[in-house]
């Protein structure tokens, strides 16, 4: 009798796995950078190229680093969400203008509004390599110690903002 029930037992175990699997997202690829210090850089600011900016300046604050570009179509989609977020003054957003021309980028911000405290220009995309940028846009949540706590690939939407990013920001700010 026992050996005949075995197929059923095996199947039950499998069904449990399939059920768990339903609630996982196979497309969600965790960044190896999560939990690691944000790579250091010093880049000229977009609006005032004479002034440099470095993530080290942000020690003690929770902040978002948003990778964007004027040539990026999905950035238009997330732009209103970022504008709204900056108006609510919850967390400072810094922009990394990725492989872009300064004139195009400034025009783009002038037209759509500038949600960023400031943006830095990564014209050659060198810093993008350090941060493992797959595609634009991407958003990093960086904590007070300068450690990357979360990486959003693709546009920030109202949904992932309220479900993931804002709770995380609140938690990090409370620490």
């Amino acid at each position: 009798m026992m050996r005949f029930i075995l197929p059923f037992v095996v199947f039950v175990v499998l069904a449990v796995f399939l059920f768990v699997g339903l609630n996982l997202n196979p497309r969600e690829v965790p960044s190896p950078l999560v939990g690691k210090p944000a790579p250091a850089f010093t880049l000229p600011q977009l609006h005032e190229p004479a002034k440099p900016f470095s993530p080290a300046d942000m020690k003690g604050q929770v902040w978002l680093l948003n990778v964007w570009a004027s040539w990026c179509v999905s950035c238009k989609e997330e732009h209103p969400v970022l504008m709204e977020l900056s108006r609510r003054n919850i967390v400072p957003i810094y922009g990394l203008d990725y492989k872009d021309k300064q004139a195009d980028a400034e025009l783009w911000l002038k037209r759509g509004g500038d949600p960023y405290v400031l943006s830095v220009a990564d014209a050659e995309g060198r810093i993008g390599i350090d941060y493992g940028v797959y595609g634009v846009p991407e958003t990093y949540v960086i904590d007070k110690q300068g450690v990357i706590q979360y990486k959003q690939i693709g546009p920030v939407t109202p949904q992932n903002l309220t479900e993931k990013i804002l709770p995380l920001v609140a938690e990090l700010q409370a620490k």
Partner: protein
Amino acid sequence: MIPEIGNFALIVGLFLAFTLGVLPIVGAARNNAVLMGVARPLAAGQFVFLGIALGCLTYAFVANDFSVLYVAQHSNSQLPTVYRVSAVWGGHEGSLLLWAFLLSVWTLAVAMYSKHLPEEMVARVLGVMGLIAVGFLLFMLMTSNPFDRLLPAAADGRDLNPLLQDPGLVIHPPMLYMGYVGFSVAFAFAIAALLGGRMDATWARWSRPWTTVAWVFMTMGIALGSWWAYYELGWGGWWFWDPVENASFMPWLLGTALIHSLAVTEKRNAFKSWTVLLAIAAFSLSLLGTFLVRSGVLTSVHSFAADPKRGIFILTFLVIVIGVSLLLFAWRAPKIGLGGKFDPLSRESLLLSNNVLLSVAAASVFIGTLYPLFMDALGQGKLSVGPPYFEAVFVPLMIPMVLMMGLGPLARWKKVDAPELAKRVSWAFGAALLIALLLPLTMGKWSVMVSLGLLLAFWIIASVTLSLRERLAGRDDFMQRLRGQSLSYYGMQLAHLGVAVFIIGVTLVKGYETERDVRMDVGDVLNTGGYEFRFNGVTEEQGPNYVAGKGHVTISKDGKVVTELYPEKRQYNVSGMPMTEAAIDAGLLGDLYVSLGEPIPDSDGAWAVRVYIKPFVDWIWAGCLLMSLGGVLAISDRRYRIHNKRSAEAKTEMPLEEKTA
């Protein structure tokens, strides 16, 4: 209006399926002839109404009715009519409808060709198939109704995925689904036998032709899919071990095992509980395949609509169908008892090892496919399993399998005299070995893998030849002996030869293919594999619903033009998706394959061009075709036709069968 009729027909179909799933099974349990008698008319009614539903959806596509959401998502007014018809199964909802319709076709076929079976068996088989249909129709009506309206209607549709706008994809899904769904017949027979508690050899004899038909469809379906991937994806590969490919390959492996195991159960009354379990497992894997494709638990190039709600529904359905079947098996199987005895070396034992190896192969594909899911569920992180795993596991399993495949048809039932068999096959094996060692030398380069592959292939060919010779040689009339063998014998040998042809294709294309990926300016000439490929540039062409960059490549050998190829890079108007149309000069000894990569920016008409020379690649699909033809021959065997006529005798035969058990 028409979509509403379709929707209504679906609901009626569900009602009929439900009645079919309940009344005849109850009737069989209570021995009530009236309740059992309704099975056939209900099967016919279910077929008619699902046919109406499918017809209505097809009409909505052909008539460009974009007020139907599913049509708006998968069609477009620019789409050529033939693709509007095939777009019916180009998405999730419609392919489910096709699934359900094909199930009703199989149900009707069983109802029509089962006159020689006892009434209660027919009632149970049709009832089980009705219950499966209930699951699928409920799934469709509750989570994925193809007739949902889109109001206000869309001005135009979103177009069919350009990947699917291809003749191969018009017939690949129906073929494959006929196979998937066809295994439900063997499953229903197995469950009916378990329900009835009569597990003699007769159920095996009855379900055997059905299983073979389903297997033939599945073989063709998989082969078509592979062929399509070869010429449409532009990478020149023919199998990618993608989760969805594996989802069709696993039931195929178990179906192959089932065909062989059914033979033993029918002929020798052995492996009875194992055969039942295989029948359950083969269909369970068909269902699981549906789950994997539809639920989005795995990433795949075949990403259909991934929706967790649908996933929950299919999983529940899966748990009910498979769970109940396996419990029924656990309850009934202990009473089945052992079958005819056999020696450790006999045709039975060879077929048993074939079964074990095929099942282990299916299990290893299964583990590889679901491994990322298991690891993720256990919190071990994300990873993917690729072709290296599958090749490392699969190939070693197939080597002993193929070696035994040669011996099986030569071995006798019950007991084989090992030295005698060894003596019989020694020449065949020697010849195969000699050819395998020498033939690669004529192809230019000798390698172990090529030699091994050829050894396996020629071993099959030699053993088939040996078997034919033993059966046909003799003093009396050759033609009479030729006719004296059963069609199912020829079918088996033809299918085995198909495996040999397949192995030759795989081995030679892997061993000797040339792949060049180069930048070519207009007028550039590439010399490779003894051919000259001259790139004459790309011109723009207008298709019905796309714009194509049409390349022109002249291929010559020793100064003589062999052929002109026109690979295309298409940009579809609506979706904006780029598609690669490889140009292939196919031949018995190999293909010349050219596909366009990307245009080189800032150049004067230069492109990245992929040039492949694929020796013997078509043998891969020719092998599959031979396997299918073998299956067709086997089911055309006289005994199945005679069987239909001797309906009354079949019933009286059964007690005899039991006595011999």
